[in-house]
């Protein structure tokens, strides 16, 4: 594995010598080949990162900066992996997980922190990756303990375990060990089904960003975090360029939504405060669900 990461470092340094401008003209196979090498080197986490980066060239005006940031974080990961024995154990666990060293469910149940609570299902996002679909289910316990359940299924097959967005499940989660434990598995379910009439989260955008900042400082390779904002107002700021979509708190702090239109969300709120659940990728919010008038509704991510 270490030799695989050495090869990755050389490859990235080559990119830097030639310049990112040249990368913009490379065919997809350029990235696929390197990603495949990482899979062969038992570093599927790195391979997945490369695949995500491959979509960046020419995708936005500031793509070189984004790509540089992504490659840079990958370089930090290989650097950290090389110095694993100098890291705190939780951070070392995170680095291993990010590189893609698997942890069996038994190990998670044995070593991971267990938390029993009533967990509200904030929402779900399913990604289709060819033959495989991956579902992210976000949960929140009290007070503001977030969890991510990752599920995998063959395309066309159902996921093994069901979660109903907007309802509460009672039970115990086992968290994967790490510097900012987020991913978890369900150790036991004791009941639930009650509908959530509000979502516990942050009252202001700045409070949420503080929380996101702390999480990023503890685990710098976090790709996304759940964002739960209480009493916020979705805003569509119309304009000649198609306008921009944001969510605004009562202090006037705002965050942008991911591309696309969010008419359902705007309609449900009527510019009155709602509780919003979304995925935060460090730049934009991707809506998952909303509680308006005491009722939870699933939001289409990209309309």
């Amino acid at each position, binding site marked *: 594995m270490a030799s695989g990461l050495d090869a990755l*470092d050389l490859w*990235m*340094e*080559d990119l*830097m*010598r*030639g*310049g*990112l*401008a*040249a990368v913009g003209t490379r065919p997809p196979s350029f990235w696929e080949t390197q990603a495949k090498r990482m899979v062969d080197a038992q570093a599927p986490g790195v391979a997945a990162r490369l695949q995500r980066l491959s979509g960046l060239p020419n995708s936005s005006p500031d793509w*070189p*900066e984004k790509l*540089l*940031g*992504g*490659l*840079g*974080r*990958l*370089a*930090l990961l290989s*650097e950290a992996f090389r110095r694993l024995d100098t890291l705190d154990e939780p951070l070392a666990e995170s680095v291993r997980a990010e590189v893609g060293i698997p942890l069996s469910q038994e190990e998670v149940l044995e070593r991971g922190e267990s938390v029993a609570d009533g967990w509200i299902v904030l929402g779900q996002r399913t990604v289709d990756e060819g033959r495989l679909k991956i579902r992210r289910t976000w949960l929140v316990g009290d007070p503001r303990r977030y969890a991510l359940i990752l599920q995998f299924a063959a395309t066309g097959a159902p996921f093994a375990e069901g979660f109903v967005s907007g309802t509460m499940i009672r039970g115990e989660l086992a968290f994967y060990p790490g510097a900012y434990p987020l991913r978890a598995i369900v150790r036991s379910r004791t009941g639930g089904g009650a509908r959530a009439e509000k979502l516990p989260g942050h009252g*202001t*955008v*700045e409070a949420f*960003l503080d929380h*996101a*900042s702390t999480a*990023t*400082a503890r685990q*710098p390779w976090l790709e996304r975090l759940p964002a739960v904002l209480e009493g916020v*107002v979705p*805003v*569509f*700021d*119309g304009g000649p360029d198609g306008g921009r979509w*944001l969510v*605004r*708190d009562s202090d*006037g*702090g*705002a*965050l*942008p939504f991911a591309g696309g239109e969010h*008419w*359902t969300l*705007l*309609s*449900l709120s*009527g*510019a*009155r405060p709602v509780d919003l659940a979304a995925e935060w990728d*460090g*730049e934009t919010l991707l809506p998952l669900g909303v509680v*308006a008038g005491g009722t939870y*509704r699933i939001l289409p991510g990209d*309309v």
Partner: protein
Amino acid sequence: MDALIRSAITGTSQEAPPASVLPTDDLLGSAEGMSPERDLLLRAGMRAVYRVAGRRATTGVEAPQPAPMETLPACSAKAAEVVRQLLADQRDAILREALERLRLAGLRLPHALLPVALDVQQEELRPAVSAVLGERGRWLAGFNPAWAWATIPEGGTEEDDEAAWEEGALPERLEALRRVRGRDADQGLRWVDEAWKAEKAEARTAMAAALETGLSSADEPFLERALDDRSVRVHEAAAALLARIPGSAYAARAASRADSVRRCVTSLPRAVCGVWLRGSRAGEGRVGL
């Protein structure tokens, strides 16, 4: 664009990475024994994390004017699901009737359904959609130019409709009539009532049919009179609408007729048998046929 990114874009072979300027650069310690490319990558990575962690809220975003409170209750989730399906399948005739029924029942569409309803492309359906949008729907339509048809008409439009009604050709007149019926059904009925006698049968048929928009029991007396129209098509158009007004005398008559047919049908075997027997006994073979 700063020097770090410029160096990364053109390549370190062309432009050496710049000296340290960012606070995160100090975290790297000595760059000794590290290639300039590796140094550039690690600094860029730290800066990316630094940026994400240091993200601040966007400011200067105006809070929009909240939507007015609704005056009507929303229809049931079940009814909303039916409407959603009809919209998706473009079942226009049934959809129009479903929307009319919601309006007659004093209901509106639930908020989650409004974007789909506002996206309706068939112009002839729009008055019926407009009548069940509620306050939220009209408010929402104001944000999207494609939905301008559903916003509260601006001043002048009512006069435009009146002019179209007074002076336009039949299609324009009918369009104006449907719009007015969506806004103020009584006004539309008065227009039709006043013009009625002077119109040809074709126009009378179309106008009677246009009363479908905004149909209510207030239209019943007029439609009852239209039943006696010398044109069969006008009669049919009026009858079709009367049958859809809950509690109308026409609907009651139709129901009682249907009921008597049902009673007749229930007791048919013996009755038919008797008639047939009586008929054949009297030598009237036709009855049996």
